[in-house]
């Protein structure tokens, strides 16, 4: 079975940043740690679990990103992916979800696959758009927010369960080829072993240049979010803060 996993590299959630003075770009500090988007890590882990159950499974990871997104692909190889492809662009953020979906669906048209797995969304933008867009381009069935997956390689179909809300789930059977987007918490992504990490360092990453510069017809500007309340921020010592919080809650009859 051939599985394609589409991943994205994102900055760590607690990274410090600055918004440029005209609001057009977000600049991260040079110490920013980047990693595989956690939803995509769940997607890759799900592919790895399937490869352990179904022999001759080949997992190919693909990303669109800057030169340094190679780190994410190396990590994916170290976790156990077989091949890695990198669409290199120095300005990943100007590509819309639709433009990325088009590039990735073109990749899928040129590489045989039975199943595509993506994360449901990215941690940085949470648009949750790429998966269904790719499926629409490829005219294959899809399902998102998946929290359980079973593959029947003989019947060539999958049975997936989606989370609709905290107490509502739905199962859906899709014939292969199909696409699923996984919800967080579907599995526990593995840590790469040392020997896999060493092997991954030597593996080839296939680079594909992205020369097109997408046309942006929507203007965008970044701002700090508005304050809805005047927050009383405690900046004293731990003990002073404990006293201040106690007095605050006491004054409001909570304690």
């Amino acid at each position, binding site marked *: 079975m051939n599985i394609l996993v589409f991943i994205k590299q994102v*900055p760590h959630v*607690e990274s*410090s*940043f600055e*918004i440029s003075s005209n609001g057009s770009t*977000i600049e991260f500090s040079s110490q920013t740690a980047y990693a595989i988007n956690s939803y995509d890590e769940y997607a890759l882990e799900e592919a790895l679990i399937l490869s352990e159950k179904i022999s001759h499974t080949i997992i190919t990871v693909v990303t669109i990103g800057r030169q340094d997104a190679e780190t994410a692909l190396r990590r994916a190889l170290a976790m156990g992916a077989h091949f890695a492809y990198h669409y290199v662009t120095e300005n990943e953020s100007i590509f*819309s979800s*639709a433009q990325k979906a088009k590039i990735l669906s073109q990749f899928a048209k040129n590489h045989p696959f039975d199943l595509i797995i993506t994360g449901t969304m990215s941690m*940085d933008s*949470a*648009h*949750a*758009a*790429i998966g*269904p*867009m790719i*499926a*629409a381009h490829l005219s*294959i*069935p*899809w*399902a998102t*927010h998946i929290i359980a997956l079973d593959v029947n390689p003989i019947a060539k179909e999958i049975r997936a369960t*989606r*989370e*609709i*809300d*905290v*107490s*509502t*789930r*739905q*199962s*859906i*059977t*899709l014939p292969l080829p199909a696409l699923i987007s996984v919800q*967080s*918490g579907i599995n526990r992504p593995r840590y790469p072993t040392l020997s896999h990490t060493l092997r991954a360092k030597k593996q080839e990453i296939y680079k594909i240049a992205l020369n097109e510069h997408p046309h942006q017809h*929507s*203007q*965008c*500007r*970044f*701002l700090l*979010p508005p*304050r*809805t*309340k005047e*927050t*009383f*921020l*405690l*900046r004293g010592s*731990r003990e002073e803060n*404990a*006293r201040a919080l*106690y007095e*605050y809650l006491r004054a409001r009859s*909570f*304690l």
Partner: protein
Amino acid sequence: MKPKACLIIEQIAGNIRECAWELASLAQLEFFRETYDWIALIAGNNIERAATLFAEKTGIEVYALCDRLLENFSGEGFVRAYSTAVQQIKPYFIFASHTPLGCDVAPALAIVCNMDYFPSLQCLTRKNEILFAYRERLNGKINEEITITEPAICTIMPGVFPIFNTAKLSGKVSIVNIDTGKIKSIPAAPNYSPQSGAELSNAEVIVSAGRGVGNSENMEHLRNLASLFSRAAIGGSRAACDMGLVDYGLQIGVTGRIVSPKLYFACGISGSAQHIAGMKNARTIVAINRDESAPIFRIADIGVIDEVEKFIPVFIEFVQKK
């Protein structure tokens, strides 16, 4: 005749989902109401009652897109139904909810109908004939202001617009029989199983865990904090559930529960829109987080910039000495 705009109304087993009533409020924004003729699209099988209810409560014309193959939800089947209607209506805008079902269909519909896609919007305003929308980036640390150009499909973050609730009006219902044709997906009926966590609805105090709590040993501190209060319960963000710190049934936010206690402790919670939508109606919000740029500090009443596991024991000791 005014140009048309559509709402995608979610239903499960003939019951209209709460997010649909929020979209009805969006359609009531003055510039939207004046500029467009609104049509609500509801897809399924045996949905006439739901369609009539929506039309009667909102005054919005409803197209009930019916087919046997739409009995249960599949992205494939529902996109086919909506796109059939869209080809006929030719709307300038389509609004769906940024929910698991909305996000399953809306992106694919944008491709099929060749419309621009603007997901996850939280606020819409019009200045000088240009439509602006806001959405969050980096888990709520940054707001992104974008201009929306038609024709476009937009998804709206749940919990942002109020539930539509005005006097009874009457909208027309048109039943549109859809020929879904052959679909490859075989969707099953949804499975409803109430989760633990009902105590969250009645709790006066909620102590809620986030990613910053770090590990399950540190949950002990949160339980100790909760025990200072009567009628207190433990909850958590999606991240805390994924980390195994709290059960999924105790999740607070868009994909979890909406709560409104008198006092809410956000411990190590950064405060993404999806979490804030679930707890912003708490009367008093206390945030404890080591990251000063965490957006939770923009909605909290009082904030402590510290590590959860270091601050809480000191606080409890102080309270117990009093």
